[in-house]
């Protein structure tokens, strides 16, 4: 497999914005098994996510992520708002955002598409399917796609 040049040696930073501990656990399981050096950090709500991304307060040392995995149904600030703020922020809008959500509502798909989400995935019910999906995200966005420099 061809490895993304600037990521091959480095640690890959992933920000998972998700409030469901079950899903966090499942995503972590998949990334733990990955052969990539990765650092998966989790924001439990929209506000925390934005603080991390903007390196505010306690997160002043937080690394800027290479990939954001974003749930839509979030406390405090929902996923749509988070997505809008990311895409309106010059320094953040280049980071690919993968929407990973339970919702298969067309409204959500349309809305996130308008806001330039990089892809939209509905969380599969089946465990195997779910693992496959998270692995595909990892494979496509971290190994195949050439990512912009941090």
């Amino acid at each position: 497999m061809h490895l993304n040049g600037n990521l091959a040696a480095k640690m890959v930073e992933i920000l998972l914005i998700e409030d469901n501990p079950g899903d966090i656990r499942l995503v972590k399981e998949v990334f733990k098994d990955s052969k990539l050096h990765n650092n998966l950090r989790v924001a439990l709500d929209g506000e925390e996510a934005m603080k991390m991304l903007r390196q505010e307060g306690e997160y002043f040392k937080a690394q800027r992520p290479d990939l954001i995995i974003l749930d839509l149904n979030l406390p405090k600030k929902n996923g749509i708002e988070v997505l809008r703020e990311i895409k309106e922020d010059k320094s953040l809008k280049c980071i690919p955002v993968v929407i990973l959500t339970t919702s298969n509502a067309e409204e959500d798909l349309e809305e996130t598409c308008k806001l330039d989400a990089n892809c939209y995935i509905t969380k599969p019910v089946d465990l195997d399917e779910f693992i496959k999906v998270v692995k595909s995200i990892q494979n496509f966005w971290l190994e195949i796609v050439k990512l912009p420099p941090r």
Partner: protein
Amino acid sequence: MKEILLTKIALQKSEEKYRTLFETITQGVVFQDVHGHITSMNPAAEIILGYDCEEILNKKSDNPLWGAVKEDGTHFPREVHPYMRALKTGEKVQGVVMGIENPSKEGYTWLSINAIPLFQPGETKPYQVYTIFEDISSRKNMEKALIEKERKLSALYETLPIGVSIVNKNRDVLDVNPAMEKILKLSKEEILRGKHKKRRYIKGDGSEMSIDELPSSIVLHGGGEIVEDDVGVVTEDDETIWIKVIARTLPFPDWKVLILTSDITQRKNSENALKESERNYRELVHNSLVGVYKSNLKGDILFANEALTRIFGFDSVEELKEQNIKNLYKYQEDRTSLIHDLKECGGLADYELEMVGKNGQGINLLVSASLKDDVISGMFMDVTRGKLAEQKLRESEERYRSLFNQMSEGFAVHEIIFDSKGGPIDFRFLDINPAFEKLTGLKKDEVVGKLQSEVVPGDTVDWVSIYGEVALTGKHKHFDGYSDTLKRHYDVCTYSPKPHHFATIFSDITERKGSEENLKSTLGKLEKSNYDLEQFAYVASHDLQEPLRMIISFLQLLQRRYGESLDEEAQEFIGFAVDGAVRMQKLINDLLKFSRLNTKPVKFREVSTEEVLEQVVFESKIFIEKNDAVITHDPLPVIFADFNQMVQLFQNLVVNAIKYHGPERPQIHISANKEEDGWLFSVQDNGMGIDENQKIKIFKIFQRLHGRDEYEGTGIGLAIAKRIVERHGGRIWVESDPGKGSTFYFTIPQGG
């Protein structure tokens, strides 16, 4: 000696002869010595120069005394003086023109001078010069006058506002003046090249004029000394220039004809306009329905038109003119007072008269007339019919009056009251009908003659500005209004029968208003409930699924991680739990799909049902192949529907038909028939069929006819199909022969 004497005598004689010549010659002769001093001169010279011999002897002829000038009036330099030139060159100088000041004359005396040098025998240098000169002043002045005249004539020619052209015997133009260029709208060069000859000419009556008919041609062909005519010249731009042309012969070999041209386009146009206007008036008078006449005070009819003849029932204008107008009056005193009034005022209008026609029939007329120079000019309008109409109007008025009294709508007539600036501030009730009393509970004597501010003082509706606009603009209005004073709602129609007045027609809609309010509130509730339903759909798609996913995922994780340490029964229990959760998830998704059908608007457009079927076959390819199904169809129509919903409908029916197949290979046939107001589709299968008592049940949501081990699915497919058809305004049903197959029918109306 004798010879010498003879010679002397001969010399004397000759001397005498020359002296006589010298004394009597009309030319002036002056002798000058080698220095230019005048030594002698003859009497003619004295006269011409205006000085006595003594005064100028020994003066040089270039003396400033003479004030010599050249022909052009500048100083005559000494060195070119004829005598100087003769002295210097020893040659004759001839025909030099010089002006000098003769003290006894005004202006210059002009001389033509010849200077002749004289030589001593054997000498080459002259020892004296004599100049002979004559007074050419009168000739010179004549010349000057001629030049002046020529200059003036030329200026006249150039500035003359009349076009002048001169042609030769071939009608080629030799010269034109600027006025001609302007009239013909051509430059001199163009005219000289003959461009005007390519133009069309027309006569005063508009007919074509040939070249031979042009005045210049007539003159050239000897048709007259002076020929005059009006000619229309049609230019290259199709514009007609009207010109008056006078051509006359010239007595010169090359200049044959002189043509004088003036532009009369404007006159011609106004002439035509006048003719047109005259004709219009003539026709107007002739064809008018109003009788027009002129008569004198004796009663003789001087002029009458056709209409007047008709009004009085005569056969012709001539027959009418034989009458005395007095005889046409029913009452002579009418004529007496008409003439009296005319004499007083000079004119009158709309004077009502009763007159008598040829056959004695009475005629009601309106007369307008004027009197001038004892001639009455007037117009008669027949209003006999108008009188009849008045009668009819009265009857009609009665009819409307009875309508006014008996109609069930309230009717009122009002006038607007204005403030000092002309803005409406109130209105007065002029008349109301009985229905008005009934609908408002107000009595006629409480209302008529009263102001709005007195009758319904508590009303918040600004009736005045609404009605004010109607009364001022004349535009009618239709609106619902509520009277706080009367506590009633009214449907009001208002219009303006005449300026500053308005009428209202109204009915009491208080009850209708009440039910409208109810309807509005019900609609509001319905909208709210619909909104809630949409919210539910969204929540269902999102929040309800998440816990389910958790259950399923972690049960599966449990099974995978710890499966080996669990016994068979525990594995089975986990399996049941997972199955249940998966099923619940499907149910939620189907329920969501079903509810979306209600909340999402149907996007109607033209849809080819053949395309719909192609899409269905494409999407269900694997399922069709797996079941080895054959799908056939008749030509299918284009309908007005929502494409995606049509795909869903056909898919559900086709998949259903395949799923519940019989022992034979599934065969599905789709056809469509044109009905009166739309299309009837049918999906026929050779499947297991449906029992009579199940036929209605199958369209209910989550209704299953078979155990879940036998057939997959939540039982929503036909419920969705039914909902789609209903959303399109159609109907769906099934006919079946158990064991042989079923046919699903549905209709889609024409308009969607």
